[in-house]
């Protein structure tokens, strides 16, 4: 018996070496930790789980002990409660002390309480628990940030791939457009588009991505040009593969890692852009708990009720920091050239 080929072990070793390097970098680990905490807070909330009523003790005797299925991903328990919901809830509404404040509930008896053991971050002008709002804001920011990066990567990726692969006048036209977009002030552009489309998280995400795609277009174009004359592409072409098949099945999968690295690096700044628009007052409107708009509302109550501003601000800061550190770590992991 011969031993299996050595190609795999060496790839595995590379991977392990990278992982080792990542673990050695304290900052990358810190970034990963912050992002994981954010994810738990954001994903764990009661209002994304399929059966929120089960969290507060609702039962469904008709569906006891169902095995995992497309409806009950993790099956159900002896009370007919969805196990997936219960698992997700561990991170979410159970750590939020006042879930009713997220959907706009107010408590005028407890306005502007300073931070205490009951209200960790104090309360705001409506008597809402700032800690609860900040925790709930994690979901809004993460979804919005991810949406921006995703749309920008897809749109920019398609434009860049088309330009790079087609070359010629298509390349010229698309890249001149991209360069022009890069000279426009992105924040003002996003503000104008968001205001014209009207309030709402989805409109804001769309508006920001419209000023975000050029970076991805340039990146992907460069990568596609570098790859499109490679041997495996020529082989595919010789076998009669169509252009779209070559581009989508052979070229794009091979340029994914720089795209993913850029997405993770951009994630923090996308969260920042979302918060900035919320702060200006364009985009998400209360009662949706968004960090930027929480901060903007709190401005009116400075300096006496400083806690209403400080904690949402710190949340933005730590979220951006976490994603930046993680993105730096990932880049060092996957991009040997950028390694320090």
């Amino acid at each position: 018996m011969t031993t299996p080929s050595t190609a795999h072990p060496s790839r595995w070793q590379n991977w392990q070496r990278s992982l080792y390097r990542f673990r050695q970098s304290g900052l990358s680990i810190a970034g990963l930790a912050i992002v994981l905490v954010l994810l738990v807070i954001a994903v764990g909330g009661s209002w994304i789980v399929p059966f929120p009523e089960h969290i507060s003790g609702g039962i469904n005797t008709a569906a006891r002990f169902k095995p995992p299925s497309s409806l009950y991903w993790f099956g159900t328990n002896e009370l007919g409660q969805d196990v997936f919901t219960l698992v997700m809830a561990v991170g979410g509404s159970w750590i939020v002390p006042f879930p009713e404040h997220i959907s706009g509930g107010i408590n005028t008896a407890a306005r502007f309480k300073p931070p205490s053991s009951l209200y960790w971050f104090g309360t705001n002008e409506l008597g809402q628990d700032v800690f609860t709002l900040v925790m709930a804001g994690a979901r809004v920011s993460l979804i919005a940030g991810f949406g921006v990066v995703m749309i920008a990567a897809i749109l920019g990726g398609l434009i860049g791939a088309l330009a790079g692969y087609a070359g010629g006048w298509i390349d010229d036209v698309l890249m001149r457009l991209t360069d022009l977009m890069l000279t426009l002030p992105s924040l003002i552009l996003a503000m104008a588009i968001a205001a014209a489309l009207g309030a709402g998280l989805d409109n804001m995400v769309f508006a920001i991505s419209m000023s975000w795609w050029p970076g991805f277009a340039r990146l992907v174009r460069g990568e596609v040009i570098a790859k499109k004359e490679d041997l495996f592409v020529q082989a595919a072409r010789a076998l009669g593969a169509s252009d779209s098949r070559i581009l989508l099945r052979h070229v794009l999968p091979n340029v994914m890692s720089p795209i993913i690295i850029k997405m993770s690096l951009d994630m923090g700044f996308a969260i920042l852009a979302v918060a900035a628009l919320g702060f200006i007052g364009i985009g998400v409107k209360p009662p949706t708990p968004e960090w930027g708009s929480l901060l903007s509302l709190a401005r009116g109550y400075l300096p006496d009720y400083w806690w209403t501003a400080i904690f949402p601000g710190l949340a933005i800061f730590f979220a951006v920091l976490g994603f930046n550190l993680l993105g730096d770590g990932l880049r060092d992991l996957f991009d040997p050239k950028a390694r320090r």
Partner: protein
Amino acid sequence: MITFIVRRLVLLVPVFIGLTLLVFTISHVLPGDPVKLAAGPQATAEEIASLSREFGMDRPLPQQYWHYATGLLQGDWGQSVLTRRPVAADLKIYLPATLELVFAAIFLAILIGIPAGLLSAITANRWPDYLTRILSLASIAMPRFFLALVLQLVFAMSLAWLPLNGRFPIIDLPPPAITGMLTIDSLLAGDWLAFTTSCEHLLMPALAMSLSPLATITRMMRASTLDVLQQDYVLTERALGLSQSLIILKYVLRNAFSSTLTVIGLYIGWLLSGSVLVETVFDWPGIGLYATKAIVTQDFMPVMGVTLSIGFIFVLVNLVIDLLYGVINPKVRYQ
């Protein structure tokens, strides 16, 4: 060199045309009817139509673009539907305020960033280096508007060292407008009191804006200093007995210029556009606040004016920087 400059200037023409076309297209593709908004909720269809005729918005789009583009060349940047003021006159008032803020922010970033980067490189992998690196990582993640609020909270509200907001006290007489930048105008007028007053107002917003470029300059200075210190010619000089400080003066500071230029080129558009946030916090009467007001009322002539002027400045500044690279570094060739 001369032919290079001329060629680059000629190439600006299509860029400027493209910019106007792009901005015009975007603002006309977006939903929203500024005329209807300006006419008010009680306006009849007839009133809206006449207002629309007055602003030339009933004509076909290519004609409107032609009118706008030829107007730009003659200094006519259109008119606000809401205030009926010409955009060019507004920009003349608000742009210098923002430029003053941006220049001050870049100045602060250079003033603090270059020594910080040097310190970081010289003490590489010891605690001053770690401290600088952590601070610069944090500075990049810090939202400008949050920092601005914290500065306000500490230095204006609690300690009362600096004025809370604005550019200049309303009750005082500002220096005669020459450049529109109060610090420069007051110096030109020889008015020392007005100069210190405007500096006091400028300090916090400029600091809040300078954070990201400051962090980038620090990082670049650190990297380029470490790089230079490992070069053979530096090792040779050190072997010949030259002191560290002399080597830094002779070789390292040269790099300070090119990293500074790079950062200015990278950040000029970002600063001009991002000043919206800081201007909002400090009620700084610049193009950011002007644009915000226009955006909220969907008054698109001012928005187009602001967007285009920032685009033009961005392109021009980057051209100047490209030229300056060659001046400070003979290795850069012009083609």
